[in-house]
């Protein structure tokens, strides 16, 4: 096993990886940028190293600095987390060449899956169904129009080099195609340094269901069931659950074996995820492979009982998988909610600021993955993901209730979050019935803001804010009663 792992990431995922290192008695080394000097991940690791300015390109994306540092501190492996350099084939290749182990797949597998168009071709050859569309880069607007007409509107432009909704534009008619093509190329260039885009038929009202796979370096492949991630805003997941209540046993079997075929087709090892779109007839289409650990891995860990991060480390160190497919059973129903610093009433725009107070929910089968605490700065440099709450219960509805309570118990001050929005989704009829698609938020939650009309809560909010209003002007009326504990009693006299 490794002696020291360098974690080339930040935030909650870096914290998650540090924990796995500690459990395996591996020295954890974190890296931090200027604005992350006091971040949780920089303090929880056994060692932490400054790697540059706050701009990601100066720090968390600086390949050479990270590799040089890993060598200098005698790290024998690098864990990339998700995002940043995790799916950068040239970085992985450099790591491989430096003699340090990359905790993840080989650069070759990442390269094969990295180009979405190449991956589509590979899947087609290996009998994994793909969304109808082009398997080549679109070279001109005219070519785009021709392909779009062949495929039939509505269509979707997608970036060849990446995902996460960047470079993705929907087109419903030819009049919209020119501006969408431009915009998709611009976004793709900015996000991935490559303006290549291709066209897919827009599968209308699909579900997003993905399969977690894991493989060792000896050719043993297992799947850890599926996750349903259809609750998305701006093409990014907000709530994920496992298993999907939409799949029957037969479809699950087909889907998971397609996922294993996909992984085998690129000689994959370590943890990976194959994403599918599933239409209402339960037809499924390969969307892309994420060649890394995913944000939503906790729900899979809950229902499978497997610690994915520790398993990743063991596989990277050359150990065989510690379990077989037949050992795995779905242990319950798990849900994850992503807590973002964002404004759901204003197109989910990210919010920056300071976390002035933070109290986490807890209880049976409630898990929190976080990169923040009281005092943390949420800067504009990084993703506004603050933390993730995951819960498990035997049945789905009980899991929804457990999550609702956990969200109510989560206190966070100084910064607006999507907590209330998440609670509203949990009460949505389509969500509760399980019959929701990736259009849920757009269909049911855009436009008029639905507000909590509970009178008790309104009165409490009114009294509290009225009190804060009086406070500065009428200090002589406010009596502060000191008590023996840290609470200060306030009275109006």
């Amino acid at each position, binding site marked *: 096993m490794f002696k020291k792992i360098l974690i080339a990431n930040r935030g909650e995922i870096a914290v998650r990886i540090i924990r796995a290192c500690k459990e395996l008695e591996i020295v954890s080394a974190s890296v931090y940028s200027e604005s992350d000097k006091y971040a949780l991940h920089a303090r929880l690791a056994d060692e932490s190293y400054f790697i540059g300015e706050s701009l990601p390109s100066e720090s968390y994306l600086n390949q050479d600095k990270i590799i040089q540092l890993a060598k200098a501190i005698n790290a024998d492996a690098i864990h990339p987390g998700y995002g940043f350099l995790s799916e950068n084939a040239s970085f992985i290749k450099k790591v491989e060449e430096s003699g340090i182990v990359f905790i993840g797949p080989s650069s070759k597998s990442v390269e094969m899956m990295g180009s979405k168009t190449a991956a589509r071709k590979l899947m087609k050859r290996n009998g994994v169904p793909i969304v109808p569309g082009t398997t080549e880069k679109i070279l001109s607007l005219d070519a785009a129009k021709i392909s779009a007409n062949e495929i039939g509107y509505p269509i979707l432009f997608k970036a060849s080099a990446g995902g996460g909704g*960047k470079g993705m534009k929907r087109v419903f008619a030819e009049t919209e195609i020119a501006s969408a093509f431009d915009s998709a190329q611009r976004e793709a260039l*900015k996000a991935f340094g490559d303006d290549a885009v291709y066209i897919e038929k827009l599968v209308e009202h699909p579900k997003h269901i993905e399969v977690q796979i894991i493989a060792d370096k000896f050719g043993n492949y297992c799947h850890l069931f599926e996750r349903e991630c259809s609750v998305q805003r701006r093409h990014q997941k907000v709530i994920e659950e496992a298993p999907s209540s939409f799949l029957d046993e037969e479809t699950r079997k087909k889907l998971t074996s397609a996922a294993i075929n996909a992984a085998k087709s690129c000689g994959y090892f370590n943890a990976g995820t194959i994403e599918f779109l599933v239409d209402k007839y339960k037809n499924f289409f390969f969307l892309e492979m994420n060649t890394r650990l995913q944000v939503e891995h906790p729900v899979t860990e809950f229902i499978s009982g497997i610690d994915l991060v520790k398993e990743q480390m063991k596989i990277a160190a050359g150990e065989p998988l510690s379990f077989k497919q037949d050992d795995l059973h779905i242990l319950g129903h798990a849900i994850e909610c992503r807590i973002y610093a964002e404004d759901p009433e204003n197109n989910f725009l990210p919010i920056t600021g300071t976390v002035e107070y933070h109290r986490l929910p807890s209880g049976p089968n409630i898990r929190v993955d976080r990169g923040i605490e009281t005092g943390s700065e949420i800067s504009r440099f990084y993703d506004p993901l603050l933390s993730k709450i995951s819960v498990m219960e035997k049945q789905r509805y009980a899991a929804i209730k457990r999550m609702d309570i956990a969200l109510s118990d*989560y206190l966070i001050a100084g910064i607006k979050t999507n907590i*209330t929005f998440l609670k509203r989704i949990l009460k949505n009829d389509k969500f509760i019935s399980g019959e929701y698609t990736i259009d849920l938020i757009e269909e049911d939650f855009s436009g008029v803001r639905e507000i909590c009309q509970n009178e008790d809560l309104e009165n409490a909010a009114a009294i509290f804010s009225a009190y804060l*209003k009086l406070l500065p002007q009428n200090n002589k009326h406010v009596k502060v009663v000191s008590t023996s504990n840290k609470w200060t*009693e306030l009275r109006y006299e």
Partner: protein
Amino acid sequence: MNEVYVSINGKEKVVQFINGNKVLVEGKEFQFDLSKDNEYHYFLRLDKKTFDITKVAKDKNKIAILTKGNYFECIVRSKLEINAETILAHSEKSRHKEDVVSPMPGMVLKIQKKENEEIVIGESVLILEAMKMENEVTSPFSGLLKKIYVQENTPVEKGSKLFRIE
């Protein structure tokens, strides 16, 4: 002065503090007990009901809070302030004449309209890039695009002026 007018969820509630732990909300009496943990975390007992409250933001008369997972924005005003506002509203013609500010820090990627162009409500005026995503900034109302305060490829802070519609 112990009276505060609170606008919440589109309703107006008058809150009157009577003494130590008595308060009236719209004339209805409650026993209350408010304690402070720190500037951002409070605990309120209302009759026997309990509320852990965190302050999300406070900006002049606007107070945003979170309690039991529910976010509320309250506008708090004294009688005097309400009177002043009524007078102001009458004296000034209620025309839409407003600066549109940036909803987030980002980069102005592309300006799609020119000054003195007529803009229809909801029309995209410029594209702002944040978190590597392109966001269209649309006009909140129809009117003349009087002034564009920003240039392409320049960063803007949250709240900084983008353009003016008259």
